[in-house]
C-alpha cells in the first residue's frame, strides 16, 4: 500500500481555518473519513491529491510533496467526486474514459484497448458509445470511477461517491470499491459501508477527534452526533 503523510497540516480558506495541526500517517488498504458537514473532511481528502495545498505543513505521497510534485502525485492518487456530472468531460462513455489516457504516452490502439477492458470490468462495455450525460446516476458514478481507475493509480480517494445514489446503485459502487486492489480512502456519510474498513478517522471542527478501527471510531462518531 502507498504511504501518505500529513505532517502538521493546517489549511485556511481566507480567514477560516478548515483543518488545524493535523498529523497523520495513512498506510492501511481501506481508510474511511467521517464527520459532519463543514467539519473539514472533504478538504482533508482534497489535500491528498494536491487539489488544495496546505497553508502550513506538508502532505507527502510516497515521499512526493503535493506542493512541489503535484503532477506526479496526481498520477498516483486518483480522485472521485460526489457529483459524477461534474467529472464527465467528453460526450460519450468510451471517450470520457479515453480522455484520462490522453497524456499517457500510449498509442491510440493501446488506449482504446485499455478503455475497452476498463469498461468491461465495470459492466459498461455495452454503453461505450452512448452519450455519457444520459446515463443513470449510478452508471455515471461507475463511469467516473472507471475514468480514474483506467490510469491505474496506487491510491483512490473518494469524496462521498454514493451520496447522490439510490440504495441499489450505492451498493453497486461500494461493492466495486471493496474489490479494488488499490488503497481506498473514502469520505462518506454511509457508515454501513465502513464496517469492513481497516481504519476510520472522525473529523470535527478541523481536527481528528477519533482514529481507530471501525467499531471504536464509529461508536465515537455516533456519540458525537447523538445517533444510536
Amino acid at each position, binding site marked *: 500500500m502507498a504511504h501518505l503523510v500529513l505532517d502538521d497540516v493546517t489549511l485556511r480558506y481566507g480567514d477560516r481555518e478548515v483543518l488545524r495541526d493535523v498529523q497523520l500517517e495513512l498506510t492501511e488498504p481501506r481508510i474511511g473519513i467521517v464527520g459532519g458537514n463543514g467539519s473539514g473532511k472533504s478538504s482533508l481528502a482534497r489535500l491528498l*491529491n494536491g*487539489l488544495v495545498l496546505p497553508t502550513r505543513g506538508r502532505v507527502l505521497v510516497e515521499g512526493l510533496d503535493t506542493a512541489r510534485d*503535484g*503532477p506526479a502525485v*496526481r*498520477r498516483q492518487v*486518483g*480522485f472521485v*467526486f460526489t*457529483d459524477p*456530472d*461534474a*467529472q*464527465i*468531460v*467528453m*460526450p*460519450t462513455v468510451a*471517450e470520457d474514459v*479515453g*480522455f*484520462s489516457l*490522453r*497524456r499517457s504516452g500510449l498509442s*491510440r490502439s493501446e488506449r482504446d484497448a485499455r478503455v475497452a477492458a476498463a469498461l468491461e470490468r465495470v459492466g459498461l462495455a455495452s*454503453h461505450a*458509445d*452512448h*452519450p455519457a*450525460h*444520459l*446515463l*443513470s*446516476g*449510478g*452508471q455515471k458514478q461507475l463511469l467516473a470511477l472507471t*475514468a*480514474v481507475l483506467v490510469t491505474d493509480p496506487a491510491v483512490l480517494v473518494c469524496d462521498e461517491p454514493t451520496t447522490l445514489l439510490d440504495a441499489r446503485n450505492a451498493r453497486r459502487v461500494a461493492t466495486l470499491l471493496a474489490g479494488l486492489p488499490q488503497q481506498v480512502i473514502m469520505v462518506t456519510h454511509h457508515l454501513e459501508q465502513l464496517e469492513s474498513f481497516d481504519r476510520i478517522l472522525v473529523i470535527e471542527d478541523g481536527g481528528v477527534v477519533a482514529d481507530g478501527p471501525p467499531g471504536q471510531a464509529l461508536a465515537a462518531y455516533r456519540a458525537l452526533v447523538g445517533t444510536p
Partner: protein
Amino acid sequence: MSEPGRVAGGVAETPLTRASGATGVHRARPGVKLAMLAAGATVLFTVRTPWVVGGAAAITLGLAALARIPARELARQARPALLFAGGAGALQAWSAGPLAGVTVAGSLVVAVVAASIVTLTTGSQEMLDAIVGAARPLRRLGVDPERVALTLTLAVTSIPVVARLAGEVRQARMARGAERSVRALAVPLVIRTVRHADRLGEALRARGADDD
C-alpha cells in the same frame, strides 16, 4: 425533467450517430470538416444575403442527408439556438426590415446545424487531435494547444449539461408559481452554471488535465 433518449434502465436509447456512422462525411478528416465549417460560417456571416443563406441551408441539409442524420436529431440540435436566433432576427427585422430579420435568424440556425453535423460525425478524440494540430503553431506564442482543444471541446460538451440545468431551474420556477419570472430563471441558472464550471475545473485538475 424528462431527458430525450432516456429509458427505464437509465441508458440512452441510441448511441451517438457518429458511433454507427460509416458514411463519407463520418470518414472525412476532422481538420477538413472544421476548416469547411469555419470557411462556411465566415461566408455566412459576412455575405448576408437570402441567396447565401438559402444556398448554405441546402448544402447543410445535403450533408446531413449524406451522413444519414435523422431530421429529428437535426431539429433537436437546432432547438437551443432557436430562441437566440428568433430574438436576433426580430431585432434585425425591427431595425432593417423583415428580409434582414429572416436572413440573420436563418444564418444563425444554419451555422448551428452545420456545427452539429461536424460534432455528430466526428469522435471527440479525433476532434481534439485536429484542434491540437491546428493550434500547434500558436505554441511559439506561449499558447498550449492541448488547452485550446480542451476548451473548445468542453464548450460543446457543456451544452447538454446547461440544457439540463435550465430544465431543472424551469421546473423549480414552476413549482414556486413563478413561471413568468425571467429573474427566477436567469439568476439560479447562472449560479448553477458557474458552480458546475467550478466543479468541472476541479475535476479536470484532479484528472491531471492541468499538469504539463
